[in-house]
């Protein structure tokens, strides 16, 4: 007969110490939290643990996985499949450019949308609308915009600047910049979060700054930005995670081409998993991406100590 562990004994002792009402309340708590707990276990934790194991196997999804240890990882790092590391490079390049652009453009639009003018709600809706459209439909629309011969973008470049635009989605140098431009399309969601942050900044701070003789730039730099820094931080973390998980645009518009020039890590993982049915290898890519995102997120969190200011926060020095 198994004996109860120290932890179990402790839990039992705590439960015995509770009144009937408290125990009932406890049970209700677990019951009400159970949908999330079951969902977390079934759709997150168990698949994650399974994929960690699968990343150390050779599995074609139809036959039994064959344990291969760290072969998949060593294959990646020894250049067995150079496209994997290339895809990380492309994804990083895309993220490094698109995330700051989205943050800046979102903030700029939010500042405009925060003005007290007549009909501002209409403008806010218009700027937010693109964010609610489906990714596939948007990608199809952008395919036409990027068309080098009939596309709106090249037409505008020629009409306004007499510049012959490139073949955006066919040229290896221009395909990622094209996708970065496209990423600005749904900046409305970032804008909305900024806008909520802007409206939460107490007006007395601006009044005090005015009394102190601050001009608009000073107010923006010394009041708005510090007060908005938690929101910027939130958008930055979400933006990095979202950009590193880019998939739909590349899948619909380029399929990773030309010659893997737009092969994002998520897309390459998908191709291995569901085109070539190398699920073990795809799991290894997934775990590398997970670790990569984790490291970047930790770095951003650590850096936030120096530039994110929370209301009411006291700092030394």
């Amino acid at each position: 007969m198994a004996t109860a562990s120290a932890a179990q004994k402790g839990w039992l002792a705590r439960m015995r110490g509770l009144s009937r009402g408290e125990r009932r309340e406890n049970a209700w708590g677990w019951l009400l939290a159970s949908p999330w707990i079951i969902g977390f276990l079934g759709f997150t934790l168990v698949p994650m643990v399974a994929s960690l194991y699968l990343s150390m196997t050779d599995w074609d999804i139809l036959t039994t996985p064959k344990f291969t240890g760290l072969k998949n990882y060593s294959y990646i790092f020894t250049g067995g499949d150079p496209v994997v590391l290339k895809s990380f490079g492309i994804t990083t390049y895309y993220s490094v450019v698109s995330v700051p652009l989205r943050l800046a453009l979102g903030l700029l639009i939010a500042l405009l949308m925060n003005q007290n003018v007549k009909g501002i709600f209409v403008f806010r809706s218009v700027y937010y609308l693109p964010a609610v459209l489906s990714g596939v439909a948007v990608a199809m629309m952008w395919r036409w915009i990027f068309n080098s011969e009939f596309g709106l973008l090249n037409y505008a470049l020629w009409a306004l600047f007499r510049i012959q635009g490139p073949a955006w989605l066919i040229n290896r140098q221009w395909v990622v910049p094209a996708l970065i431009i496209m990423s600005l399309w749904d900046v409305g969601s970032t804008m909305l979060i900024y806008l909520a942050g802007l409206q939460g900044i107490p007006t007395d701070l601006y009044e005090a700054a005015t009394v102190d003789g601050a001009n608009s730039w000073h107010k923006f730099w010394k009041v708005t930005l510090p007060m908005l820094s938690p929101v910027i931080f939130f958008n930055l973390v979400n933006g990095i995670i979202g950009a590193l998980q880019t998939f739909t645009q590349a899948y619909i518009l380029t399929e990773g081409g030309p010659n893997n020039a737009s092969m994002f890590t998520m897309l390459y993982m998908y191709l291995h998993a569901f085109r070539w049915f190398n699920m073990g290898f795809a799991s290894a890519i997934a775990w590398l991406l997970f670790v990569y995102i984790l490291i970047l997120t930790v770095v951003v969190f650590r850096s936030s100590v120096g530039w994110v200011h929370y209301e009411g926060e006291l700092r030394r020095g």
Partner: protein
Amino acid sequence: MAVQNRFSRRQFLTAASLAAGGTLLAACQPKVVEVEKVVTQIVKEEVIVEGTPQVIEKVVEVTPPAEKPVEVRYMYWGTEQIEAVNSQVEFYKDLAPTTTLTAQLVPWDQYWDKLWTALAGGDAPDTFWLNMSNFASLVTKDVLMNLQPSLDADEALQADWDANFDSLKAAYVLENDAYSWPRDYDTITLAVNLSLLSEAGLPFPDSANDFAAWDWATCKQYAQAMTKKDGERTTQYGLVTENTSQTGWFNWVYSNGGTVLNEDKTEFTMNEAPAVEALREYVSYRREGMSPGSEALATMGSSDLFVTQRVGMMHIGSWNVGELNDKVTDFEWDAVPIPYAPTGKSICMIHGLGNTIAKGTKVAEAAFAWVAYLGSFAGSGVLGNSDTVIPSRQDTAPLWFNPTFKPEHRSLFLTWTDKSVFFPNTAEPTTAQWNKYITDELTLVLEEGKDVQEAMDSAKASIDAILSGKGI
């Protein structure tokens, strides 16, 4: 001693085949189906003697028992064949009223993801289309029903199987066992816009001796004549050369004596001289401005460019002929073979699909009966009359070549079956995995002017590594 009666499909299918004539004639007049239902059946008795099940050899004719209603799911990808598939389903309803067939169209882009994951999850459709690229791979993974025991046990079924073209049967047999029942086959030609040809002042290519004069030089001359420019801008192209194998470079490579892989499929061979020469010829249409580029093709597709008269010629698979006939309304078109290479050969890719049963199906007998119907003269005949794909049976394939169907030289799709080659598919690694390297390298050749030899040497390094098992 326990006796278990098992419902057999044998006589039922025989009846279905007998009804074939009527069904086939009726196919020309849909919904007026007069099927004589001679539904006698045979019961095989499975006897358990001392715990060992045995099937008694004798068969007993009985009156038809009340069949339990069953649902059979059928998954396919051909949007141009919706009507044909629905017709087959409709006809089958009359033959097997207790079988509810659910035909599910899944677009090509999602088809294989869906099939593989459904097979892995144990929820695969009972029956589905299969192509040759995936056949060997799925057989080796033991997820397809082996049709051979049923074929061996029934002469009528065996006769239906034997009616298929030999090459198609061979393609769906692995180690003497059949795992997919051929349904159709495809060959490739070039489609020519006769109006644009006439505008360019050219006659239709000489059809004497199987178009023997239609060689690379003549084809290029025709493409050049049909290419039109307005200043720097090309308004009309001569021939579409896409970065694709079946309706593209494969045909040119093999016509010139080139190959994709060696005999035992262990080495990539498209970097050898005949293939490289053919690819250079193929690519020259792009480089010399006679073919639209990848972007135009990604936006419109070769078929739309042809229908809108922006190109004079394109490669066309037999499965697209009916659809093209429907779309082309304001000009005439005809077919010519793949141009003869300097080797004196014109070779096209042949391919064919099969109807397949998932090994894990819970309605094995009903699924088999449906697949056998599709392979029968009746089922295949419906397909032949639909002007979609060429049926795989030798006796129903001629239906597709109905002389009243356009274009005039439609028969080339049949003539060239003797001059056709299968794509060298592999089971492990899958074809898709190494084929990508060819496409990637050819993209650089077509879009960025990379040298063909250099590109194919580069592809060889990657593909040989995969084929030798050094890859993932």
